[in-house]
């Protein structure tokens, strides 16, 4: 009895305020869609960081015989075998170093050929122009400074280069975009909340006859407020469901069908990340409007 009565009240209320309900659904859908997207974006950035930091290493380039006049570091000519051995030994003693790979000029030439093989420049490069290097893999990629300060001033070392420097701007850009998304989401969320509060007020006002009678015949305030709160919660849940559709669609179309084909070097987030975000979106979509309605009604429907 009770449930049926409450349900029919909700139906009446939602239909009576169809336009406002629609506005609530759309604004909740957009704000929660952005919310989910920004959560996924953070996931994506950390996935990418993990992937790239795993790949990137710190390179210690040695002077070769052609570098004598290119920089002060190499004024004394090519690095000696002794210098290289000393550095290698020290690297192996450092706890933060995971592994060291020695890349000779010939190997560097080979990699160079692989990357730029078909371009005209490739023909001009000879193995002895390319520097010999140690590729140092660190246990914690952020500890790069330790290597740099230890070896960059050593005789025979041309340069210590952290490959993270090349990918960092990308992450900064992605993070910046993420913050922008969060800002827009916060604004949308405020708009959605104000809309909900307003919708509930209009709804309560348009049914003041019913609620007035309910009060007089002794309906509890819980019973009087329940239809309005559920109304807001249902609109919010519908909006959240839309948000989920947007998120899933965005992931399927934008990432799986498009970006994954275009950019193969990036490791994109999987469906498991999406599956983690969706319940959160639904929960917020349900609770936020219900709470907003509750507080909007407290002022409006006093006993």
């Amino acid at each position, binding site marked *: *009895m*009770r449930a049926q*009565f409450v349900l029919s009240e909700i139906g009446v209320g939602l239909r009576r305020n169809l336009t406002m309900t629609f506005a609530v659904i759309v604004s909740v859908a957009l704000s929660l869609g952005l919310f989910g997207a920004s959560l996924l974006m953070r996931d994506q950035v950390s996935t990418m960081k993990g992937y790239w930091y795993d790949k990137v290493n710190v390179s210690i380039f040695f002077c070769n015989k052609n570098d004598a006049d290119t920089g002060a570091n190499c004024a004394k000519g090519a690095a000696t075998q002794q210098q290289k051995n000393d550095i290698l030994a020290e690297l192996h003693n450092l706890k933060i170093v995971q592994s060291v790979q020695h890349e000779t000029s010939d190997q560097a030439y080979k990699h160079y050929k692989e990357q730029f093989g078909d371009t005209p420049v490739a023909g001009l490069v000879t193995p002895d122009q390319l520097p010999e290097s140690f590729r140092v893999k660190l246990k914690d990629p952020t500890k790069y400074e330790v290597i740099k300060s230890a070896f960059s001033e050593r005789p025979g070392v041309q340069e210590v280069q952290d490959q993270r420097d090349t990918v960092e701007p990308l992450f900064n850009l992605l993070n910046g975009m993420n913050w922008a998304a969060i800002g827009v989401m916060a604004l949308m969320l405020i708009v959605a909340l104000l809309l909900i509060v307003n919708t509930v007020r209009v709804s309560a006002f348009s049914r003041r*006859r*019913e609620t*007035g*009678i*309910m*009060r*007089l*015949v*002794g*309906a*509890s*305030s819980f*019973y*009087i407020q329940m239809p309005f709160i559920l109304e807001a919660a249902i609109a919010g849940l519908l909006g959240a469901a839309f948000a989920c559709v947007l998120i899933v669609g965005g992931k399927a179309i934008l990432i799986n069908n498009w970006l994954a084909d275009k950019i193969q070097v990036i490791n994109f987030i999987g469906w498991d990340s999406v599956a983690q975000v969706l319940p959160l979106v639904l929960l917020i979509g349900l609770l936020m409007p219900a709470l907003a309605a509750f507080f909007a009604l407290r002022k409006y429907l006093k*006993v």
Partner: protein
Amino acid sequence: MIRFDNVSKTYPKQNRPALRDVSLEIERGEFVFLVGSSGSGKSTFLRLLLREERASHGAVHVLGKDLAKLSNWKVPQMRRQVGTVFQDFRLLPNKTVGQNVAFALEVIGKPRGQIRKTVPEVLELVGLGGKEDRMPGELSGGEQQRVAIARAFVNRPMLLIADEPTGNLDPQTSVGIMKLLDRINRTGTTVVMATHDQQIVDQMRKRVMELEKGRLVRDQSRGVYGYQH
């Protein structure tokens, strides 16, 4: 049943109190007319009975409860034992007569079987037997007020409060409504009725209380309207 001890009520942001130092007692089963010009405090008196307002000073006892000490969440329970009827009927225009009466039972969570049984009974009692499926708009004013009375009485309340129930009705229809209220009173329900209807008060010869500028200036058993416009 009802007891007022030195009750005053001043609304916020107003200097003049709506009720001043009113003390009275109404016994179970009484029929009381509340008379007085507009603004004399009749409505405030009724609002205090329903605890829509709280007294500024003094104590209001209704159905043996001190309303000042009644917590908010217990107010609905109290109101279930009080029926209310208004000048403007306050029916829901989009519900049938039967649904209007059933509404009062639905919102306090009465079981469906009981509602189905009680609603026709009470409609029969107020003289609207068989009009269950009519819409309020199809009924005359007197019939609409009977629906409102049916709704107020369907819970068999101890107390029935009527705020100018005949205010919108012609004299003949009013007599019918008064007969109905009298019958309800004879079942043991206390009736408090605010009115401007001199003819009715003079005919019924019940207890009359007169308010003037918030003061109780007359309390007379088997009284007359007595007050000139």
